[in-house]
């Protein structure tokens, strides 16, 4: 496989009337890898997916799948497998007929078709469900049938739109792991659209954060987690809060000079002279008034979440979230200090 294989998007713009739903988006997904497009509702991530599938008109830019320019190619000739948010099962067909649909459309001989259907049903562990109707399946099973149907045609590119959002929250963890395993087994170049940062981090080998029709940052999950491009990325991926900072020798000052930290307590492995810090939910710990780098915060909200207590804090007008392991006694004011290496200088 060469670098030109997989999916390449260059300068993609999609317009709905006078509105640019997607503006000048460029991305590359190497063959066999998984791109997670993540962003808030209405940011344009599904429009990017639909443009790649050929379901919306492209106003400008170029889309290449396995090196072939498909920008103006009809959806039926792009050789993509699409799994929409609702899974879009054909309700009047059995599971096997759903899975065989694309093969029939491509006039695959019956023998080859039956073998392929059996293969993909085995891949998604639904061999015993071949004759069932979609109505007789659970949400998770429907998701796997939709995935099998998309994979059956051996697509050059697999497109999944919010594949887990229609499922109960309790099931999502297991099904996310199953989906990851199925995608790994299929080895197909994949684009997943999601608004869930956990899904993006767990499923994507690359993540692109989309905001207002543009890609704000693209990179590996670790890159985005550890070095978010801006406050929006940090906040959206849940990696933390970014604050402007100023380093003066051995100290770093935040909040316009109202919070001073010893530089030695910060993670300065990325840069020694950054002008921002990334404060994660576990970067601060309750401390005594004399703790180095300590700061007093108003407790705005306390939420018990089982393994930890989540607090919304107000640091002199700047709000931060803090996850404290175990139970924390409620108090209106809390003194906090940085965990060594917990705050990252960027």
């Amino acid at each position, binding site marked *: 496989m060469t670098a030109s294989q997989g999916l390449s998007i260059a300068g993609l713009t999609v317009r709905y009337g006078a509105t640019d739903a997607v503006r000048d988006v460029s991305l590359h997904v190497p063959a066999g890898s998984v791109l997670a497009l993540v962003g808030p509702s209405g940011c344009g991530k599904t429009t990017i997916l639909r443009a790649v*599938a*050929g*379901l919306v008109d492209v106003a400008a830019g170029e889309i290449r799948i396995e090196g072939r320019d498909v920008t103006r190619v*009809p*959806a*039926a*000739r*792009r*050789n*993509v*497998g*699409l799994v*929409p948010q*609702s899974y*879009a*099962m*054909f*309700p*009047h067909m059995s599971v096997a007929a759903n899975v065989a*649909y*694309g093969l029939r*459309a*491509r006039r695959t001989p019956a023998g080859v078709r039956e073998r392929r259907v059996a293969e993909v049903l085995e891949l998604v562990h639904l061999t015993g469900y071949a004759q069932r109707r979609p*109505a007789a399946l659970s949400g998770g099973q429907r998701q796997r049938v939709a995935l099998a*149907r*998309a994979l059956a*045609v051996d697509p050059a590119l697999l*497109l999944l739109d919010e594949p887990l959002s229609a499922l109960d929250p309790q099931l999502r963890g297991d099904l996310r792991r199953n989906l990851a395993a199925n995608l790994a087994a299929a080895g197909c170049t994949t684009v997943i659209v999601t608004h869930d940062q956990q899904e993006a981090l767990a499923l994507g080998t690359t993540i692109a954060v989309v905001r207002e029709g543009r890609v704000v940052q693209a990179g590996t999950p670790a890159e985005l987690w550890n070095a978010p491009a801006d406050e929006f990325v940090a906040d959206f991926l849940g990696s933390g809060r970014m604050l402007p900072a100023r380093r003066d020798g051995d100290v770093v000052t935040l909040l316009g000079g109202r919070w001073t930290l010893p530089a030695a307590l910060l993670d300065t492995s990325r840069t020694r002279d950054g002008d921002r810090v990334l404060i994660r939910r576990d970067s601060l710990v309750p401390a005594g008034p004399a703790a180095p780098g300590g700061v007093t915060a108003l407790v705005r909200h306390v939420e018990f979440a089982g393994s930890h207590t989540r607090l919304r804090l107000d640091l002199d007008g700047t709000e931060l979230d803090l996850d404290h392991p175990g139970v924390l006694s409620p108090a209106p004011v809390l003194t906090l200090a940085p965990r060594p290496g917990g705050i990252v200088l960027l």
Partner: protein
Amino acid sequence: MRAGAAWTRLMVAVVVVPMLVTLVVATSVSFSTGPFSGGVTFDWMSLGLELLAPTLLRSFLVGVGVAAANLLIGGLLAWWVARTAAWPARLVGYLANLPLAVPGIAISVALIGTYAQLRPSGLLLVAGHVVFTLPFTLAALVPVLAADGLVECDQVARSLGASPLRRLVTVTLPWCRVAVLQAAATAYALSYGEFNISFFVNAPAAPTAPFALFEAYATRRIELASAMSIWFIVSLLPVLGALAALRGRLAERSS
């Protein structure tokens, strides 16, 4: 339970009782002297069938033609209105619904004035009935064709390489079959019983069944006209029964 009984009574009062009264009139020797005062006779029924039969066949053929035209024209129009966001589609949708608010006489006069040459062949009658029934076909088909679920299934089928014809046959029609059947049944029933347009547009030498009924009530004995009414109702049963059975089968298959 009580609501069910109340609805049943209401339906009996407005549908079954008038039909029974009509049957009593049709089987009375002379209803003007009282029901069955001169005894029971089936002569009116026999004569009524003889007079009405040719018009029933004509109405059946017109009804089938109207239902077919509705599915073809109405189906394509409904698909276009449902899948197009542009204003011309909305405008055409509104225009197609306009005949609902226009009296049959106005539609008839407009059609005769514009397409008089089609009148002798009966095509103008079919066209008039299509104009009259099209809003009902659109009302049945547009919401189903615009359903998000169908649109997504269609998009998936497209992405899997299916041609437009294959998508129509394997995805769209199975998804809409109950609505299609409903539209066809409604168009047939409306055409079969339609009087206003038939009265004005149709050539008098080849009357439809409702026109023949009107003429019978206007010019013949009430017993004979009632007998013809009974035969008209009976003639509806096979087609509506077949449609109901087909609908039941479809519902069973999709469950």
